[in-house]
């Protein structure tokens, strides 16, 4: 199974490596969002510092949604789902492989956004370990949820508008928990950052279990 998961993830990453959409288009766009947030807050350094955790996750959500959209457009445009159905790769492996591919791309996006937030919003990091654990949990949760909803919106003409509508309400707890955990890591909120990080791990585990169990239904044709 691990071999199949890696095979699917490698395929997606190879496509991404050749097109460089994540680094070339999505990451600059997400950075632009960080700049636009500063306009919305009238470049108030104190407000931006207080909200930096939340703004980071909103930018990840924005850029990540585009990545998920793209991950499934690649499959549907060339009719790859038919190939998957005929292949021996099981639905759980496909789900985990796609999730791993999205996870790595979102990590790349975060590696660009993180320094962007630190520099533009003048953020000081108090707890690196919490920051990394929360980022890991949030990114896993985002990736598995994204793949689960991405396949539902795949192949329909209104997918560009449908995917965010489906995804954002489900990811609301991740955004909330990620923001709080990051704020604790940045030292602007003396609150249970680790508990919020744990919430994200639970969300990631629940959605991974649902994805492994139901992805097969979502791939089937009538």
């Amino acid at each position, binding site marked *: 199974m691990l071999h199949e998961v890696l095979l699917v993830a490698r395929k997606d990453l190879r496509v991404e490596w050749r097109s460089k959409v994540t680094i070339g288009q999505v990451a600059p766009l997400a950075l632009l969002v960080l700049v636009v947030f500063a306009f919305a807050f009238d470049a108030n350094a104190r407000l931006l510092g207080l909200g930096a955790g939340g703004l980071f996750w909103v930018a990840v959500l924005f850029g990540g949604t585009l990545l998920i959209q793209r991950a499934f457009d690649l499959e549907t445009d060339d009719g790859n789902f038919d190939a998957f159905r005929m292949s021996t790769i099981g639905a759980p492996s496909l789900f985990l492989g796609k999730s791993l591919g999205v996870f790595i791309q979102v990590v790349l996006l975060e590696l660009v956004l993180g320094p962007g937030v630190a520099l533009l919003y003048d953020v000081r990091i108090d707890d690196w370990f919490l920051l990394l654990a929360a980022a890991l949990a949030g990114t896993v949760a985002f990736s598995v949820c994204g793949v689960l909803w991405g396949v539902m919106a795949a192949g329909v003409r209104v997918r560009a508008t449908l995917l965010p509508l489906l995804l954002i*309400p489900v990811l609301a707890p991740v955004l909330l928990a990620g923001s709080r955990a990051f704020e604790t890591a940045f030292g602007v909120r003396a609150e249970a950052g680790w508990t919020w990080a744990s919430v994200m791990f639970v969300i990631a585990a629940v959605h991974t279990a649902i994805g492994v169990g139901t992805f097969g239904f*979502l791939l089937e044709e009538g």
Partner: protein
Amino acid sequence: MSQIPDSKHMTATLGTRILGSVAVAAVLLMTLLGLVVSPEDLVQGHAVRMLYLHVPSIWIAYAAFVLTAASSVLFLIRSRSRADGGRHHDRLAGSAAEVGVLFAGITLVTGMLWGRVTWGTYWQWDARLTTTVLLFVTYLGYLALRRLPADPIVRGRRSAVMALISFVNVPIVHFSVDWWRTLHQKASLSVGRRPEITGEMYWTLLYSTLTVTVVASWLIVHRYRVIRLEELRDEEALNALIASRLREDDVGN
């Protein structure tokens, strides 16, 4: 011959006509009880009357979403074994979700009006309000997914999985938002706990819950039948198109 029943039997039967009449009469009595018989609250004043619609609405919305989730599970389990592909369960899930969204919307509107009078503002980032609005938008998304043009069984499977995830997500959303902040007053009625309201108010609230349940059941039955009619219409249109193409081919040959 068309499978679509004639207009007399399209959406109503004797049973649902009686249920509808009972629902209308019950709503009239509920209005009377809520606006006239029930006294105003010592703290909330006349705003308490809003709760006779607000509280039952969210109960019914939750119940409808439970029905959607249960029907979705049955659809996923039975779609391969039943002759109709389990579409009965799919229709039930869809009609319950529509009614659930309607009552979640009513809950939000009445809650905001109640909040304006009691809290002095239409919106507070309170746990239950935030959870309800997320729930409302989640199921709006579910209805949007159901409206997509696709093979009914494929669409049904996607919708069923979405209904399941949405349902599993409700406690996660509620827990995280509740933890985030809470201002909302404690539940007015709950099983196994002494109610915080008594007398006419308590009975009016119980009666309103019963009334809203009857209204919701009536709506679900009718929505189920309308969804079934839409499916029959689509199937007939498709069959007519295939028949006309075959005739064209015959003429061509």
